[in-house]
């Protein structure tokens, strides 16, 4: 038997209605039946307090309240019904400083748009099978920014290549999943650009080659 997503609920927070419709159609295809939506972080927090969903999928850039501000409120506010709720942040940003900014606010998972259905599913699967501990310190409350692998998990898509060096990893080795994700993205961009003789990448490679010499 597979995941019974119909037993769980999800809140989608997006200011772009067509994007809400798309994400909704994807999660409903996964099996979610209780899908709530909101158009910005403020509305999102209100909906979160009202429905207490099991998962939040939120855009970053929204006005007047963005996804990061909403996440901060969810993690910190006394009104929050579940400070541990998993939050998946969607954004077009893939630059490291942006990802770290999101991570440091207590985001659980990060997806760079445009994304594939498999990207979203993989993050949800990570939350279910490989949850992060929560850390509370003087200046941070949120999911541990490192993750341990659940060695017992034998999901249907577990293949040899999934256990390669850039996967979520060995039980004895803590890894920064978000940073790895950036590296994967960067590698993908470089490969894509290489195909088209991107001058920026060529210059980058040349520069690195010189350093190696």
């Amino acid at each position, binding site marked *: *038997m597979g995941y019974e997503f119909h037993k769980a609920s999800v809140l989608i927070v997006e200011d772009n209605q067509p994007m809400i419709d798309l994400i909704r159609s994807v999660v409903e295809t996964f099996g979610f039946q209780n899908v709530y939506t909101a158009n910005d972080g403020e509305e999102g927090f209100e909906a979160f307090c009202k429905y207490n969903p099991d998962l939040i999928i939120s855009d970053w850039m929204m006005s007047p309240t963005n996804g990061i501000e909403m996440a901060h409120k969810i993690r910190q506010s006394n009104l929050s019904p579940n400070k541990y709720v998993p939050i998946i942040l969607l954004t077009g940003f893939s630059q490291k400083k942006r990802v770290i900014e999101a991570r440091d606010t207590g985001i659980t998972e990060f997806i760079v748009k*445009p994304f594939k259905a498999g990207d979203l599913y993989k993050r949800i699967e990570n939350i279910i*099978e490989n949850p992060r501990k929560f850390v509370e310190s003087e200046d941070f409350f949120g999911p541990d920014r490192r993750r341990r692998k659940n060695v017992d998990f034998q999901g*249907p898509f577990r293949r040899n290549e999934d256990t390669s060096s850039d996967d979520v990893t060995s039980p004895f080795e803590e890894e920064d999943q978000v940073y790895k994700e950036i590296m994967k993205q960067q590698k993908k961009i470089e490969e894509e650009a290489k195909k088209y003789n991107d001058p920026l990448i060529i210059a980058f490679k040349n*520069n690195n080659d010189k350093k190696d010499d």
Partner: protein
Amino acid sequence: MPNKENVSKARFYNPPNILKEKVGSGGLARNILEQAQKLLEENDIDFEPIAMTYMDALRRGLDHAYNPSPHTTRFELMEGLIHPIMQLKANGGMFDYPLVSRIADKMIELIEGATEPNEDLQEIIQAFHTTITAILHSKLKGTGGVKGDNLYYAICDACDRYFKKHKREHPYYG
């Protein structure tokens, strides 16, 4: 890297895995995932009106960046340029305009690497604005084929020239 003092003060929790408790285990059948991907790929949402709102925001960002009010910070000016382009990158590929995403991604790289809104940057962003407008009006969906590649190369060349001229602004060239 956190210092030892911070580490010693940090408390770790194992919060209840509510999602796991509700959905159980067993993953998701591959055909469901394929079906979801098909929905993403075959959506017929018209991207042009969505994109035009970001293009208008970019136009305002440009006007603001090159005619700033006295108390606006450099960070605010650059963010006013980056945000609409980021939205174009994020949404283009979701609504059958991956070429828009590809070109916008290059522009984000340029603006993130630039230190201030100078004339050269303004010229490239203007070119970007014109290019994206042309793509949208001509409904150049998908990768755009050879035409799409040429538009992309043109933006890449402009970025290349920019960073050669402003070497210190980019880690690859500095």
